[in-house]
């Protein structure tokens, strides 16, 4: 018995139903007192590659398992193509899952593994055999049809798991860290392959991963999860260029976050903020739309967007400029990475492309410099900045 009353009509549910393939409405999941998912809603459009990205324990796998029917939400609704499937068992849902451990049936041949789903649905023998064969060809494993899973490599087992799910022509494919157990090279190769297959067959993929690069390279939409909630969802570019929370800013790539106080905006498109030591910085006003004004605010900039100048040089006129001292300079071949400390005691990371080719014109530890960046590249986050 759920103690939380069912929401009869979520505001989002009034939108067009055809476009939305998978929808979670105000889903909660608790184990006793332990809250795994707290009030999570998401919409996934038909045919999209959707990634749930987050650190381990953030609830991303639980979310996926609720879509698949392996976990029942404590409250809230799960909809597939507009139908409420919250209480339906997995075998009655039109989605299929690829498990991290592959979960192939060890006592059945590859062919029989792939045919399993079709046999359960009563597809006739001839048709089943044909479709299983086609699907194995699609994942380039036609020659291994008679093998047992025990005789496959990790990459092959992964492909069989994919074929076994896709052969049922599901409405959506759920992938639970499907590449987690593979080595880097194979992982990159299978990422491309997954993306290609998704484009070819055009069904919705929901992909759970903790690898930000994997999510960014494959997904149309990424939902960054933290502590049982979605922190921010959007395209890879949205999340990288305009993160809205310190967590997102640092989970996808690294960010320089500087605590500031917001001041009155000027007449142009920029607003002004002030650092703790009194430097004025500017950012686009429309970036501040989501501030609720109750929490501490920090502005951020990505390390590669920041330029370094000698103390005697003049940075571009409209850039944000802060004086700083070099703590450490690291040569990384493709780039140079600087650790800096601003006059206000803020530590910054700057990555400069290796354009010079020798150590002249670079900066050494102890040197006074100025950092500058285009005010348009400044983003703003709300909340405690860890380690600031």
């Amino acid at each position, binding site marked *: 018995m759920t103690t939380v009353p069912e929401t009869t009509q979520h505001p989002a549910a009034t939108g067009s139903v055809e476009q939305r393939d998978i929808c979670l409405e105000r889903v909660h999941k608790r184990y006793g007192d332990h809250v795994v998912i707290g009030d999570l809603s998401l919409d996934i459009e038909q045919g999209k590659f959707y990634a749930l990205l987050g650190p381990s324990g953030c609830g991303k796998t639980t979310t996926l398992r609720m879509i*698949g*029917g*392996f976990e029942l939400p404590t409250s809230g609704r799960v909809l597939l193509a507009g139908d409420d499937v919250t209480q339906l*068992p*997995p*075998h009655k849902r039109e*989605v*299929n*899952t690829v*498990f*991290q*451990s592959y*979960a*192939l*049936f*060890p*006592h059945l041949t590859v062919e029989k593994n792939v045919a*399993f*789903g079709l046999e*359960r*649905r009563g597809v006739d023998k001839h048709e089943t055999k044909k479709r299983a064969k086609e699907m194995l060809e699609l994942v380039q494993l036609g020659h291994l049809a008679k093998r*047992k*899973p*025990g*005789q*496959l*490599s*990790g*990459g092959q*087992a992964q492909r069989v798991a994919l074929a*076994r*799910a896709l052969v*049922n022509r599901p409405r959506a494919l759920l992938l639970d860290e499907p590449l987690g*157990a*593979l*080595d880097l090279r*194979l992982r990159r190769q299978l990422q491309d392959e997954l993306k290609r297959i998704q484009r070819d067959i055009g069904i919705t993929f929901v992909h759970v991963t903790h690898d930000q690069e994997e999510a960014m390279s494959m997904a149309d939409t990424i939902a960054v999860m933290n502590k049982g909630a979605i922190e921010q969802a959007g395209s890879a570019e949205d999340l990288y260029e305009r993160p809205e929370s310190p967590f997102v800013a640092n989970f996808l790539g690294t960010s320089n976050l500087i605590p500031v106080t917001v001041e009155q905006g000027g007449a142009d498109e920029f607003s002004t903020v002030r650092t703790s030591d009194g430097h004025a910085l500017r950012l686009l006003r429309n970036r501040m739309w989501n501030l609720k004004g109750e929490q501490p605010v920090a502005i951020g900039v990505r390390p590669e967007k920041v330029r370094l100048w000698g103390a005697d040089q003049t940075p571009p006129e409209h850039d944000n400029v802060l004086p700083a001292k070099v703590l450490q300079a690291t040569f990384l071949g493709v780039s140079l990475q600087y650790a800096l400390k601003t006059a206000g005691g803020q530590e910054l990371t700057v990555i400069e492309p290796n354009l010079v080719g020798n150590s002249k014109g670079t900066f050494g530890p102890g040197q006074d410099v100025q950092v500058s960046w285009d005010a348009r590249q400044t983003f703003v986050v709300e909340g405690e900045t860890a380690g600031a």
Partner: protein
Amino acid sequence: MSTEALPQKPTDPVTPHVPGVDDSATPRSPRGDTGRGRNLALGLWTALALTFLLAPILFMIVFSFNDNQGRFNFEWQGFTLKHWGDPFQNPDLAKALQNSLSIAVLTTIAATMLGTLLAIALVRHRFRGRTSADFFVFLPMASPEVVMGASLLAMFLVLGIGTGYVTILLAHIMFSISYVVVTVKSRLEGMDPHIEEAARDLGANEVTTFFRVTLPMIAPGVAAAAVLAFALSIDDYVITSFNAGQTQTFPLFIFGATRQGVPPQVNVLSTMLLVLVLLLMLGNVLLQRRLAKRDRISQAG
């Protein structure tokens, strides 16, 4: 294991591992001479240990061919096949063996089924009282047989159930279940639960998942459990003796017979029983091997 079987230079510092040869019996000699002596000693010791283990069984088999005179079968009096020609000559003995076999078969079926289901419930489901159920299942294994036999008898008397074939059967099923649960449980715990989820994900309901995926995968455990239940039931004396009433089982009959002199048919039937149990065990080993080969999943890429 003799050293001659493994030709090697005495100075060879490293003895290569010979596949298929048990390591404990493989000579590992850093120096030739002492190594050879040690191997001889080890061989002798092994032979002694095996003799100690197997001599009683050998005696039983040999004396099934004894042409004994009178009631006793303790003295070798000449070779004969007459006991083997008519092992069921003694009607009481035949009846006792028949009881034992039918009880063992029924116990195996019932205990394996109930124990397997119990193991699945304990491993796969979270329910109130699971921990205590998990604990109490082990109780029949841990408690002394005499205590169990006596308490079962007390229970049957209180309930007014006359002791006999049925009470023996109930008692056997009861103590066999524990062993089945333990055996099947360990197999289930080693099984990736995602495999059953994958079956349900692919459209199999609970029943289909059980018969098409779970059961084939835990089959080695279930087979081992069944052999164990059979072996436990067929040779149980203590608990049976409390609950047998007028019913005779093979162990009860032999025990009774030793008081007056063991008829050689006992040796014959025991030998047959031994062969039957050995065959069962062999079958189990072969099955386990086949299933292990089937289940070997390479994790490496």
